[in-house]
């Protein structure tokens, strides 16, 4: 943001710190009118500025979704390259704690389905820093799905990451943990769960490879594929609703597991996802509605022991 004067930030209730640092011309507090200010952001991007549009949560992006899809994602194509749209839509996505059904939805699969959009989802501080910078520099519209629950967590950061030139590539997943027995894909908060599951699995002699997707669109099909060809087993994890989810895509993508790696699978893929219900408030129900570490462990074990189980059942 300090590097490029064309970058400006707009949204509701923007933190004072940024306002003080960059001034009211570049940090704009908006009324609670997502359709209006998102449209304004997209228009400013048409002109050549680089807006960062903040949603208090991505649930409210539904008010403005037409601008994200029809005004931003499709313009470069419809204009045959005349009107590109260098904009970032960012905000917390998915479940926070105890906020109920209207404030807990994950939008990764929706936005990830739309050609013309790039969809990123950071997990660690390294991701947040490197991917946000990449998003702001990108000439295309980027949906940047953060997680409120991760804001509070701290991650070890290397010197390289702290360097002002640090940036991450868009469209590349990161192998957070190498392993040989089973591939676990995840993004955002679920990467942390997957890593913890991997630790538990290790105790049972299962060596899990954990892939942090980072980019939902473009999806890094080749990294996933290479991993599955090695491990022959796949568990996908996400917080969002299961039907038509990111896991569904990974399981069936042509460049991915089922189609191209068909010959390689030793067990059915396992999908772990948010429960197929609106998010309940009560703590016990909420816990059941989002994937827990033990769900991932169980699914991974099933994938690894499946041949045995099948034989036993037969």
């Amino acid at each position, binding site marked *: 943001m300090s590097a490029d004067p064309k970058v400006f930030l707009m949204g509701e209730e923007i933190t004072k710190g940024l306002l003080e640092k960059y001034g009211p011309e570049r940090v704009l507090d908006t009324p609670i009118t997502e359709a209006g200010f998102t449209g304004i952001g997209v228009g400013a991007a048409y002109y050549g500025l680089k807006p960062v549009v903040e949603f208090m949560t991505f649930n409210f992006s539904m008010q403005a979704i037409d601008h994200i899809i029809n005004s931003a994602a499709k313009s470069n194509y419809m204009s045959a390259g005349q009107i590109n749209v260098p904009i970032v839509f960012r905000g917390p996505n998915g479940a926070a704690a105890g906020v109920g*059904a209207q404030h807990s939805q994950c939008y990764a699969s929706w936005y990830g389905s739309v050609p013309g959009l790039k969809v990123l989802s950071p997990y660690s501080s390294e991701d947040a820093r490197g991917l946000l910078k990449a998003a702001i520099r990108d000439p295309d519209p980027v949906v940047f799905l953060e997680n409120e629950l991760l804001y509070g967590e701290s991650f070890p950061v290397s010197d390289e990451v702290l360097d002002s030139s640090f940036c991450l590539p868009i469209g590349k997943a990161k192998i957070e943990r190498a392993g040989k027995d089973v591939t676990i894909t995840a993004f955002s908060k679920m990467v942390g769960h997957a890593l913890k599951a991997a630790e538990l699995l290790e105790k049972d002699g299962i060596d899990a490879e954990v892939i942090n997707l980072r980019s939902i669109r473009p999806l890094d099909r080749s990294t996933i594929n290479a991993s599955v060809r090695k491990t022959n087993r796949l568990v996908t994890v996400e917080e969002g609703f299961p039907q038509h989810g990111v896991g569904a895509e990974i399981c069936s993508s042509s460049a991915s597991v089922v189609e191209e790696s068909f010959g390689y699978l030793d067990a059915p893929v396992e999908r772990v996802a*948010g429960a197929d219900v609106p998010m309940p408030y009560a703590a016990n129900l909420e816990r059941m509605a989002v994937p827990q570490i033990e769900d991932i462990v169980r699914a991974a074990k099933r994938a690894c022991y499946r041949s045995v189980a099948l034989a036993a059942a037969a």
Partner: protein
Amino acid sequence: DTTPMTIETSVPFTSHQCDTPSRSVETSPNELLTFFRDMALMRRMEIAADSLYKAKLIRGFCHLYDGQEAVAVGMEAAITKKDCIITAYRDHCTFLGRGGTLLEVFSELMGRKDGCSRGKGGSMHFYKKDSNFYGGHGIVGAQVPLGCGLAFAQKYSKDETVTFALYGDGAANQGQLFEALNISALWDLPAILVCENNHYGMGTAEWRAAKSPAYYKRGDYVPGLKVDGMDALAVKQACKFAKEHALKNGPIILEMDTYRYHGHSMSDPGSTYRTRDEISGVRQERDPIERIRKLILAHDLATEKELKDIEKEVRKEVDDAIAQAKESPMPDSSELFTNVFVKGYGAESFGADRKEVRATLP
């Protein structure tokens, strides 16, 4: 004691495109004492919710209504339970006003079985359909078209009743409000849009969010009335006026000039974007409960002691309800899959690990 008495509102109404109701409000000793008791109960309930939140018994969001009680209470005094109410997330007291119980409130806040939504809705999603309270909505502004839809249904059903759709000053800039207003005006829907102007939307002062913060005028071609929202009698007068207007002429906007003492939600201390002086000034000069207390005392309808006793009673009621709510169990885990549909046709639904947890929807 229901002897009629007349009291003057301290602030006149200001109108836009319509007549102005009289400042003389009819009431009775009984009504004033009920106002006092109801508002004291709401106040106490909200303060208790604050403590429960701090004790981590309430999670997530929790938007408190203390300061704004006169709106809920005055509105109820003007209408019947056949009229509909719909509001945003700051819904505890509105629910109570509609006849909801403290046990339902506290149980819902703590995510228990006895909650008005059996613990599944949470703080922002209270409902009481049997007395026409339709929530409890978390998306700023969404309740306004929904409320106009209730008004549509009332008119369609020839029920001769109206809907009050409450929203904040922050919500007042939402486009869907203007869309719904236009349709309501075209179709003469008995919709009353009540802008509870507490002067802040989260940390944003009204003038920073609205070029024209004269919310009662924002309907342009739709009439509006500005009301002292800290005065339950003024609110009652305005709501009566609005109900009559709406049944005859279609939509009308009421801007209630009010104030929230608490921060926006529990994570907001409420003191970074406004001065402590401002808050204590309102408490001292405009507090809705104190206003009624003064009226009661001035008219000798009760003694100071009697009013203090009411407050004590109320306190106990709240404490008892909390104790009871704490005993209420968490919802059964089978509730994860109930109410997804009314009719599930035996479709399958899945838990996080779909091979471990799945259900057949009835």
